């Protein structure tokens, strides 16, 4: 069970990740808004309660690892890493600026805490399999968490990796499918309907579970659990743009402009939600 105190902390962290991402986009003027906001809750649970990482030693070999294969959600991961102390929060404002360490898509060579380079959809799946397999063969305790977009599952490589994960019992790898039902050109069911993802992963040999991917309690219960002889696939039913009503309701919210005006409105909305968390305590510097 998720105790009340931790739940509040995670709620707060999820909102702070959203605020951080919006601040990144604001500094550049645009960015991958929808898919960054939909995974904020999963990132809050992973970095706030589940993953064993050390911000002072980002390459610690026994750590848990995250591969955000939908690399365009990098800005949400960067916000989580900055809040966790991997690098200064102020650096978030350098997103996509010339010479930045925070490119649009995740780059392990540039950003402390980014465990793998991603962005070309599908490729992070095989990379994550290799990383988890490598850790297992080296006898390391860490788990690898893999975030894959539902649109990304159009890529055949993802299914090759899924087949391999189950066949070779790569159980120290957890697949998290960000099932926000939308991809760049529209609804996933209209662009290329992937059918019932839970059944598909189950048929591939996974222990596949569908949850509300914007529900911290459900995420926490699943992501912390022991995995037995089948790898775990968590189909996270999420809302693209989650947390900002106007973004949620915008059909084309894959990439959006952030103007002075929308920024003020959206940040206010997120901060209102922060204020609504009882006993939320003091705000962190930089986001008040």
């Amino acid at each position, binding site marked *: 069970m998720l105790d009340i105190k931790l739940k509040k902390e995670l709620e707060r962290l999820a909102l702070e990740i959203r605020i951080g991402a919006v601040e990144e986009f604001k500094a550049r003027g645009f960015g991958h808004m929808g898919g960054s906001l939909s995974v904020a809750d999963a990132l809050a649970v992973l970095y706030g309660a589940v993953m064993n990482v050390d911000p002072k030693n980002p390459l610690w070999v026994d750590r848990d690892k995250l591969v955000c294969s939908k690399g365009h959600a990098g800005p949400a991961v960067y916000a989580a890493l900055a809040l966790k102390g991997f690098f200064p929060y102020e650096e978030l404002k350098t997103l996509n600026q010339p010479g930045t360490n925070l490119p649009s898509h995740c780059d392990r060579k540039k950003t402390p805490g980014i*465990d793998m380079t991603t962005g070309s959809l599908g490729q992070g799946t095989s990379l994550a399999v290799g*990383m*988890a*397999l490598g850790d297992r*063969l080296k006898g390391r305790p860490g788990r690898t968490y893999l975030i894959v977009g539902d649109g990304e599952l159009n890529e055949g490589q993802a299914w090759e990796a899924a087949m391999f994960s189950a066949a070779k019992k790569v159980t120290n790898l957890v697949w998290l499918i960000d099932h926000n039902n939308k991809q760049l050109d529209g609804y996933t069911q209209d662009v290329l309907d992937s059918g019932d993802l839970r059944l598909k992963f189950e048929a591939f040999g996974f222990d596949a579970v569908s949850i509300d991917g914007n529900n911290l309690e459900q995420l926490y219960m699943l992501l912390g659990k022991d995995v037995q002889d089948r790898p775990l696939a968590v189909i996270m039913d999420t809302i693209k743009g989650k947390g900002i009503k106007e973004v949620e309701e915008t059909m084309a919210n894959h990439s959006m402009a952030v103007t002075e005006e929308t920024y003020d409105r959206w940040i206010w909305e997120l901060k209102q939600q922060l204020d609504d968390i009882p006993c939320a305590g003091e705000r962190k510097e930089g986001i008040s």
Partner: protein
Amino acid sequence: MNIVYDGKKDRPFKEVLGEVIPRLAEEDKDVIYLDADLMSCIGTSIWAQKNPHRAINCGIAEANMAGIAAGLSSAGFKPIVHTFGTFASRRCYDQIFLSGGYAGNSVTVIGTDPGVCAAFNGGTHMPFEDMALYRALPGAYVFDITDAAMLEDVLAQCKDMAGVNYIRVGRKSNAKVYEDGARFEPGKGIVVREYGTDAVVIACGIMVEKAVEAARRLADDNINITVIDMFTVKPLDEALVLKYAKMAGAVVTAENHNKIGGLYSAVSEFLGRTYPVPLGYVAVEDEFGEVGPQEYLEERFGLTAERIVEEVRRAGKL
């Protein structure tokens, strides 16, 4: 470097791969070997079945294999990946390019049956463009293997080289050129024959023995040339190319590859801006492959000693 060429066939490459890959894995606990259902083609299958933690059969899924290899590299392993050249280049190029090279992971890729060596598997399996692709991958090393001694040594070195290394090699035998146990320096060409400097032929892979044969024939007509084995097609040994271009004043390249993007391109690109001299090439014109015995395909695509002789005469006005 001791040249022992006498025209005799060497050990089959597949025998060498079947010995060297297991040996490297046994000597170095970080070496891990991945294949895409072609272990039996290079004699690694029995060893792999006994060593499932050192050899991983990824099934017929090359893109996934390339990504897994890159992931294993980030976990501290030294992956050696094998499949046929077409699949080792075109089929998983984006994965080797991004998950491998761009992401800073190190992978050694072995692509067997380059160009006409694909013979009876035909055009679908016949890479004439694999070197072009790997040459365009920043920082990659590209090797076209000449004989068994070279394969053994280059593969052993690649496992410890950072970045992406691409080794193209047949499965059957080429002529033996180098003594057993010879050491090769990546990025350095080898002068195999030096009859004279009427022209220089820069060859790689199966074309080295044909270049030596061409040199012998030309010597009969009192045309004396030098033959260089440019087994590292990238990075090109520019100093050696420049030295012999200056001495000979005419350069002919010879490769089992499309004329676009391989050795001819590399030499032309370099000499064009440094020391332009008349150039010739023996390479596949801009064509797809087709099926047939290797000897037939060599004739069909003009990869012969005869064609080298013609190009030397043309380029050198000899």
